[in-house]
């Protein structure tokens, strides 16, 4: 049974059908369309202006590999320069292998690579140490919560080290859709409302972040990597089976099998959600310890690290968090990752927010901001 002809070049045999349009395309026309869509996402959203120094969150996995490859192709047209920033969470047997993949990618693409380690930034707290510390606390998936918050902070640090003006990560449409489902399942109205923005404007001291692959489905990312013969690291994090995100992912995959456009439709639905006034969170202030954007007295990173250092790792998660007081740091606390004595202590004024839906009044420190808990963010692969 022969495949149909590519509906773009009308010459080659089609290799796939695009989920939203139903269009049958050959491998190279599909790759061209994929790249054109990423370019459009960046230009239409004004995500990466000319002259931007872009820190690419690189994990060695398929999403960040595709992201780096595509941005490298588009860099001359956009007038941007790229730096790869990899985060070493200190997960033995997993992250070291992934970092080898990133190193060889950096060499192949001739892009500079900076690696930042949790152990250095967070006073010796590697993820393996966090997992051991949280193992007895009854909720095994909580170590992933720490990782999401700390990795965001680590990426910010790495970006600053290389003098970046913007941060990009490889989150794809499936990641975004999973996050929407997770926020619904956890009753997190605030994050649902903020979840639709293409990128963070970078309120306060946070660098602007965006996700150029946000509208690319995971399947298409995998196919792009296949047709472009990109090599990447594809093992699952050793702690991943415990993450809550796995449930959302299973549900999403079953939904997608029944209705292929469900993934993108879910993301677009979330973008159009409007919150009732009573449901909107209060505007965030700044962390009293490190000065970063925070919805409480301490930002999530400081609160989580505080809990770890006190030997009470559950303190900073869930309801217990509300009772955490901002006390002076204990001896042996991690050095403050983003301590900036000049950081403004007043509430974020948020004029840079480019989308009305996320003005600070609506609790809009974007999920990408370092201090907002975006728990169980999938390791960008």
């Amino acid at each position, binding site marked *: *049974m022969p*495949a*149909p002809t590519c509906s773009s070049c009308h010459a080659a*045999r*089609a*290799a*796939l*059908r695009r989920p939203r349009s139903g269009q*049958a395309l050959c*491998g190279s026309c599909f790759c061209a369309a994929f790249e054109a869509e990423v370019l459009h996402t960046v230009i239409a959203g004004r995500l990466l202006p000319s002259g931007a120094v872009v820190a690419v969150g690189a994990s060695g996995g*398929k999403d960040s590999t595709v992201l780096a490859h595509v941005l490298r192709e588009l860099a001359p047209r956009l007038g941007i320069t790229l730096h790869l920033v990899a985060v070493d969470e200190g997960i033995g047997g997993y992250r070291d292998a992934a970092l080898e993949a990133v190193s060889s990618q950096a060499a192949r693409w001739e892009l500079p690579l900076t690696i930042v380690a949790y152990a250095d930034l967070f006073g010796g707290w590697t993820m393996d140490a966090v997992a051991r510390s949280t193992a007895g606390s009854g909720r095994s998936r909580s170590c992933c919560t720490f990782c999401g918050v700390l990795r965001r902070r680590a990426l910010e640090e790495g970006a600053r080290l290389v003098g970046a003006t913007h941060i990009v990560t490889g989150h794809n449409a499936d990641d975004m859709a999973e996050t929407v489902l997770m926020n619904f399942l956890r009753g997190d109205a605030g994050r649902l409302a903020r979840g639709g923005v293409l990128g963070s404007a970078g309120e306060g001291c946070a660098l602007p972040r965006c996700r150029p692959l946000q509208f690319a489905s*995971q*399947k298409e990312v*995998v*196919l792009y*990597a*296949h047709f472009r013969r990109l090599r990447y690291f*594809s*093992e*699952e994090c050793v702690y991943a089976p415990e993450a809550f995100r796995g449930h959302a*992912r299973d549900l999403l*995959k*079953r939904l*997608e*099998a029944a209705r292929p456009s469900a993934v993108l439709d879910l993301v677009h639905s979330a973008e159009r959600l409007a919150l009732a006034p009573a449901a909107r969170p209060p505007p965030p202030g700044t962390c009293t310890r490190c000065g970063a954007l925070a919805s409480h007295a301490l930002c999530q990173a400081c609160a989580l690290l505080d809990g770890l250092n006190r030997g009470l790792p559950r303190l900073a998660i869930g309801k217990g968090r509300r009772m955490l007081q901002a006390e002076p740091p204990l001896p042996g606390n991690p050095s403050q990752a983003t301590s900036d004595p000049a950081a403004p202590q007043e509430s974020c004024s948020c004029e840079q927010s480019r989308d009305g839906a996320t003005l600070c009044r609506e609790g809009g420190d974007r999920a990408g901001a370092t201090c907002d808990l975006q728990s169980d963010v999938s390791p960008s692969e």
Partner: protein
Amino acid sequence: MASPLCVKVEFGGGAELLFDGVKKHQVTLPEQEGPWDIRNLLVWIKKNLLKERPELFIQGESVRPGILVLINDADWELLNSHLYLSLPCSNTWQ
């Protein structure tokens, strides 16, 4: 009656981890009563190549959602997913 069939099966993107890390397999499918198609090829793969955690590979009669299947570099959802494999051993399909 289907004669023996030579097929090249490749696993990637992490799927190979279920097959002892081996990405490329050259297999010979034995003679059998009915024709070889993708559905019974998957059953054969599960029985003869799969090394661990079958629930991550197969779900019901098909692959677990999220796993892509390419036949000669084309998405099987584009083709009839019950594609019949009919070339004898002198030819190989990827």
